[in-house]
Each structure stands twice: as C-alpha cells, then as structure tokens.
C-alpha cells in the first residue's frame, strides 16, 4: 500500500482560515482584533480535529453579531483541507451556552434564538458591507480634502485618487465587494446603490459618510480597548488597526 503524503494540518493553517472571518461592525478580521482565544489541532486517523475558542470584548456583545462570527468561523475552518471535525465555542458570553449548543447541533441562527430572531442574517451582513464602503469612501475623500480644501468632491473620479495609497486600495476592495464600478472614470462619491449624488447634495452625502466612518472607527477602538481590559495580555493577539484608516490615531493619555 502506497503511503499517502499529506502535510499535517498546522495551527497556522487554521488561523489563516479564521483570518477570512470579519467582524462586520468593525470591518476587521477576528484574528486582527484578538477575538481568537485559542486554536487546538489534534491529528487522528480520519483527519484533524480542530477546536477553536473565540472571545469578545463584553458578555453582552450583540448576539446576532456573535452568532455571525462564530458560525462563519465554523464554516471557514471546516473548509480547510484535512480537517475532519470542528468545534468552535464562544467563551464568556451571556449567550455562550445557547450559541455553542445551537452551533454544535446545526440549528442555525433562528433555530438557536427562536421567535424574535430574523430568519437570516443576510440583511445584517449587507448593511455592514455598505457601511464599510461608505467609511472607506469618506477616508479617501477626507484625506484628499485635508491636503487641498478647494477640491470639488462631487467631480472626483477613482482615477483622481492617489494610486498605491492604502485608502485608495481599501476603497476599491470594498467597491468590488458591493459590485460597484472600479474603473478610473467612476465617481468616488456615490450613494449606496452606486448612483452619483446631485452636486447640490454632495456636501450632505459626504457629511453623512463621515458620521458612518466615525462610528466604525470609534467602535473599533472601544472594542479593542475593552478586550484588553477584560482579557489582560490579549494586546499581544491584536495587530494594529490597518493604516488605510489613519484619521483617528489611537491615543491613550494617562
């Protein structure tokens, strides 16, 4: 019988898979914000058994977001070649028992939470994909405006954005995710559906986008900070917020 050469599954493979799971509200991978508490891989005859523990900044982080991240993590790890079984558990949450049981039994979101739950979390995902795009659009525009206040925001196209800048790349990525045009002639300032605002509305559209961006960034800082308060040492598991979002430096004064 010929020996089958298979690479052993490593913890790094599992973490790479978990890196595709995003906290929709913060628009960051759960691996960057320190939500992955532990990864254990045990090789067996049929393949690897993987156990992942996740943690969140508070016991009461929104249960729908918690479910989304935990079930996405389960899906992502299950899809890694060589994985035979997966257990993903959420630790120290007000709904830990409910979520962990529901996930293990494959009950789905509604099956787990019952009558007050929406049938699907697709709407939630869509809302936050839109917000991520809106925030990226505002970052790209405000970065330019701080250099040149006389810019005509409504007239800017993607080709006018500095190529190679993180803010530009981030905006293009989020436009792709939404199916919005990414060609150089496409306007930068758009409504959620990709349509160009009337020039008279441009200011209001930008201002509203700014309040979205401030919410997203503010949540990211608060959640990162609370996680390190709740789990001392978890700073080591966080990577700095990417520099495509440079507008609120995280500044801790003592």
């Amino acid at each position, binding site marked *: 019988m010929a020996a089958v050469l298979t690479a052993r599954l490593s913890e790094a493979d599992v973490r790479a898979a978990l890196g595709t799971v995003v906290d929709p509200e913060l628009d960051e991978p759960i691996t960057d914000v320190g939500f992955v508490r532990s990864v254990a891989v045990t090789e067996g005859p049929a393949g690897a058994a993987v156990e992942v523990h996740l943690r969140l900044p508070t*016991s*009461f982080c929104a*249960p729908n977001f918690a479910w989304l991240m935990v079930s996405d993590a389960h899906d992502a790890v299950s899809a890694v070649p060589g994985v035979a079984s997966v257990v993903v558990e959420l630790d120290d949450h*007000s709904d830990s028992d409910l979520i962990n049981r529901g996930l293990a039994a494959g009950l789905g979101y509604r099956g787990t939470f*019952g009558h*007050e739950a929406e049938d699907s979390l697709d709407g939630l995902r869509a809302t936050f994909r839109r917000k991520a795009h809106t925030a990226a659009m505002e970052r790209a525009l405000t970065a330019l*405006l701080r250099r040149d206040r006389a810019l005509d925001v409504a007239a800017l196209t993607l080709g006018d954005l500095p190529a190679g800048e993180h803010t530009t790349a981030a905006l293009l990525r989020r436009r792709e995710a939404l199916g919005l045009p990414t060609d150089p002639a496409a306007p930068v300032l758009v409504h959620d559906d990709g349509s160009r605002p009337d020039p008279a509305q441009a200011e209001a559209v930008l201002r509203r986008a700014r*309040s979205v961006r*401030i919410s997203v960034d503010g949540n990211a800082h608060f959640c990162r900070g609370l996680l390190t308060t709740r789990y001392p040492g978890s700073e080591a598991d966080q990577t700095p917020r990417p520099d495509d979002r440079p507008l609120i430096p995280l500044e801790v004064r*003592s």
Partner: protein
Amino acid sequence: MYTKDGEQYYVVDSHIALWDARPENQRNIHGKQFIDCFYDYHRNLSPESEVWGYEEYLYQGGERLMRDVFADGIVDHAVFQPARLAEFYHRGFGQTEEAFALAQAHPDKLTYNHYWDPRDGENGLDALRANAERMNLQGVKLYTADWHGESRGWKLTDPMAYRYLEACRELGIRNIHIHKGPTIRPLDRDAFDVADVDHAATDFTDLDFVVEHCGLPRLEDFCWIATQEPNVYAGLAVAIPFIHTRPRYFAQIMGELVYWLGEDRILFASDYALWTPKWLVERFVDFQIPEDMTEYAPLSTEVKKKVLGLNAARLYGLDVPEHLRLPGADETQTGPREPAAADLASV
C-alpha cells in the same frame, strides 16, 4: 456651579443611578456579567486616579452618591435614570425606593425619573399612573433591550408602547429618556438603528426624546434622525468619558452632534456610578477640538454652558440663577448647523 477662567457654568448631570449589583442581589450569572461589563467600561475609560475597586463599584448607597456626584459643589442638579433589569437582579438594578427617598430629601439637587416597559401590559399602565402621582414624575428612562421573560427587546413603535406614551402625555411626563447604546442589545428588533425614536418623536411632538449614549455605536443613524426632529436630544452618557483616553474620537462625536443637532439639544451626563461627574466637567470645560480637525468649528464657551447644564435645565424647568443664564436661548431647530463653519463640508 463650576468656575474656570472667570466663566461660571451651571451643571446638570442628566443621567445618574443608584444601583445595587452586590452578589446577594444578583439573580443569575447575567447579573454578574452586567456589572462586570460596566466595571470594564469604567476601568478602560477612566483616568487612573479615578478608578475604583471592584467591591465599591457594586454598590454606593445614598450618602456616597451625594458626596461623589456633588463633589466640590460642581454639579447643581442630577437626574436619576434607573434601569430595571429584573431578569438579572432580584430587586432590580436601579434601587427605586432608595433613590426616590434621596430625591425627596434633596429636591433642590435631585430629580427622580422612573421606568416603564410596555411588556407589563395593562398592569404596567396602572403602575405608571400610580408612580406618576406618587413620584411626581417629569421623566422616564426606557431600556428597549431589557429582557422580559422570553423577550429580548421591544420597540417604541409597538402598539402597547404607544399607549404608555399617550399616558405620559396625559400625566405630564414630558422627558422620555431612551437607552440606545451599550450594554445589552435587542436580539434583532432595533438592532442597528434608532428608527423607532424617529416615528415616536414625529407622533408625539409634545414629548422630548433624549437618546442616551447618543445612539453609540450607531452615531450616524442617530444624527440622521435627530437632525430632522426638533424634539430629539443627545445624552452624552458613555460618550463623554472618551474625552480622556480617546480625545480625538470624542472631538469627532461632539463635532458631529453640534453639526447635525445644534448646540441646544446635547445634554451632559456622567452616567454615575459608571463614572463620576467632577473630572468629566473639568475636562469638558478645558476641551477643544484639535486644530487639525478643520472639518469642525471650535467649541465655544456658550456651547459648553448649554451642554453642561442649560439645555437640561430647560427640559426639567430648573431655576437657573440669573447670572448663570445665557441671553436669548432660542427654540431648537432642525437640519445641519452652520455648514460654512465646518470648512470641509462647504467645498
């Protein structure tokens, strides 16, 4: 009253609590999780000199509350905004009788607001009427994410909630404080917007809706509805302590609120005992929007006086000494303010 650099500020702390989260009052694990979450907010956002020990954080009692809230005579008046959380605590989280008695003992300094929950049905309506009379209620604090039996939340637009709002109107309870922010969230209902406030504010134009925690973490949704409804206010509880650890974030929150709501509809609050008001007032008076944030106009002394106390004094009919008032406080307006002052916006 707070005095700094020759300016005098009348101060109203529009959101305080007298809570009891000691183990003997915790009904289950959630009671512990809830206060632990508060304690983490407290530790995460407070200056080191203001951090309390865990034991003293669980319960303060009236005597200590009076010392903490009215320290150095800075706060002139404070308003109780209790949370019930009956599923987490045997005797509830906010201590109704203790707080009410304290308010009766110090009527010049304290106002007691109570709560209601439409899921209490007809009995709750009767209780509201009785409480309104006994407590002479001017306001209520509503927590739409509170658990209630199998339910994980409700909306201001639920038909039963409208009956309670109608009762408030009839009973002269004008100030509707509604919790929209951390800690617990409704499961799906209302999970990412404040749309129910929008509807209620439109249908009850004679009531004032103070959105506590200004809708964080959904500031944008809150600003959008508040700019259109003249009877919607922003409560700064939980937002203002960012002034210490994340001053640039706080600057942007203030910049956005002043832009969308104007300076007449923002209310200072410490959220005591989450934080104490003294250091927050001192920091806020010294605070300014960083110069590189050219998209926002600086905060004037007049804006700070309104936010710290004059706006809340108007809502609660407090008698502000003549020398602490501002001339000609106008009716509140709708729509974004002074776009020209925010230079980036005018490009």
